[in-house]
């Protein structure tokens, strides 16, 4: 589903953010990326999402080489990728259902959507997506009134409304309390296992990674330290990932 091979990313400042990273995530698999701040986790995720063009290497999503696409063809390729951010990034003044319907706009690139009409024919799907995250009864509520955990679940429903084949989550629990964080991770785990989505999730919580991930990718200064089954990653591996990062 997601294949990244030999990814390298050097910023215009000369800093090497990612060095020869390779990764493949199949359907139904949840891979967590761990690493210290500036280790290249988000850079890797943004390269996979087509938000950054890598200096070297290729990214394929559902067979399409996303790292070489631009403009409309990139927009169409992104339909296969649902993205979840650290903050829910909902339009706070709109209803929950309107926010979820925004996830379907990529399939409705027409005049109506360009002038602000929501694709109402997708409403049943949007309700199904809210069902999947357990928030159907909040459909008519204003997004700005939700708690952090609820807002993040709506963001996941918005990503699901795209009918993606993979989910990319960039620190989705960083701004949530421990209970809401567990809830989001359980949801991502279920979407991988039951819906067959390939899930790539950047985290800062090794404990959550070990509980919910199939495999863990450890990054340090842009280099891959390990890519192993979660059960095979030891505390020493984790400690080595974070120790003395200024070195």
């Amino acid at each position, binding site marked *: 589903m997601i294949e990244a091979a030999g990814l390298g990313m050097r910023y215009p400042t000369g800093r090497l953010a990612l060095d020869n990273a390779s990764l493949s995530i199949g359907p139904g698999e949840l891979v967590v990326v761990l690493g210290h701040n500036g280790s290249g986790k988000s850079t890797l995720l943004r390269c996979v*999402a087509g*938000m950054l063009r890598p200096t070297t290497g290729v990214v394929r999503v559902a067979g399409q080489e996303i790292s070489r696409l631009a403009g*409309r063809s990139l*927009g*169409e*390729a*992104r*339909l296969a*990728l649902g*993205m979840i*951010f650290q*903050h829910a*990034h*909902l*339009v*706070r*003044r*709109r209803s929950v259902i309107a926010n979820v319907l*925004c*996830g*379907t*706009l*990529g*399939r*409705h*690139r027409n005049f109506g*959507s*360009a*002038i*602000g009409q*929501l694709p109402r024919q997708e409403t049943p799907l949007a309700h199904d997506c809210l069902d999947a995250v357990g928030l159907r009864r909040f459909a008519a509520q204003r997004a700005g009134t939700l708690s952090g955990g609820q807002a993040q679940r709506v*963001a996941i429903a*918005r*990503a699901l*409304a*795209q009918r993606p084949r993979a989910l990319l989550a960039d620190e989705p629990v960083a701004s949530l309390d421990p209970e809401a964080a567990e809830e989001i991770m359980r949801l991502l785990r279920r979407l991988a296992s039951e819906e067959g989505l390939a899930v790539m999730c950047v985290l800062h919580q090794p404990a959550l990674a070990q509980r919910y991930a199939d495999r863990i990718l450890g990054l340090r200064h842009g280099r891959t330290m390990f890519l192993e089954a979660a059960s095979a990653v030891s505390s020493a591996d984790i400690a080595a990932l974070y120790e003395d990062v200024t070195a």
Partner: protein
Amino acid sequence: MNEVRPIALERVAPPLDPQPGRTGHALGFIGVFAFLVLLGQAALVVHARPQDLVTGAAGMADFLSRAFPPDFSKLREVAWPALETVDIALFGTTAGVLLALPLAILAARNTTPARPLYAGARGLIALCRAVPDLVWALLFVTAVGLGPFPGALAISVHSVGMLGRLFAEVIEDMDMGPVEAVAMSGASRAAVFSHAVVPSVLPSLLGITLYRLDENIRSSLVLGFVGAGGIGFQLLTAMNLFQYRTVSLLLVVTFVIVIAAERLSAWLRRRVG
């Protein structure tokens, strides 16, 4: 048992509100002196003569006695210029919003498609704002003749300057998170704009527009002095013809319009906020 001794905070950190030293006093004195010098030169330049207020009191009393009571029999004649005044502001503000919005999109760093367009839009907005609406009215009276239309044009051009800048600032300050999220769903640029940018900034834009409409009603009252229609034109004519009771009626109508517009604008702003 050991005695707990309080920590001497004053030894650790200096007082939060230190007394000004000699340098502070001297700077304060120089500042006050410089301001008094500036005020003095301003009084000289404007020929400020407070005694004229005393000697002119008789003239003012004479004006008030001639102006009272307002000539309400002319209320029907005044109704049309009053409507003209409100309509100049309404038309001018609406046209101003329609022109300012696309310019603001070009003039906001986060939505402009190209740097030269940003610079061009910012320049145009600054030009519209730098020239006062009264001067724009003079120019348009020369171009299209006397009447309310040049007034409406003047209001719209000046509004482009004021609204364009404020709209651009609102767009620049908006949270780009929802924009990024909707863009990632594969939506077109236009859809991202209408579904993520517009709903996020609309309440602020509406509030600014209503405030501008309120300001423009006030501005359109004086545009008549240069021949651009409305109550201002009637006021000037009545003054020139020494019809002071008509002048006082026009002032009462002006007061009612300004207060009503202010109240309505404030109420609507609270509703959309």
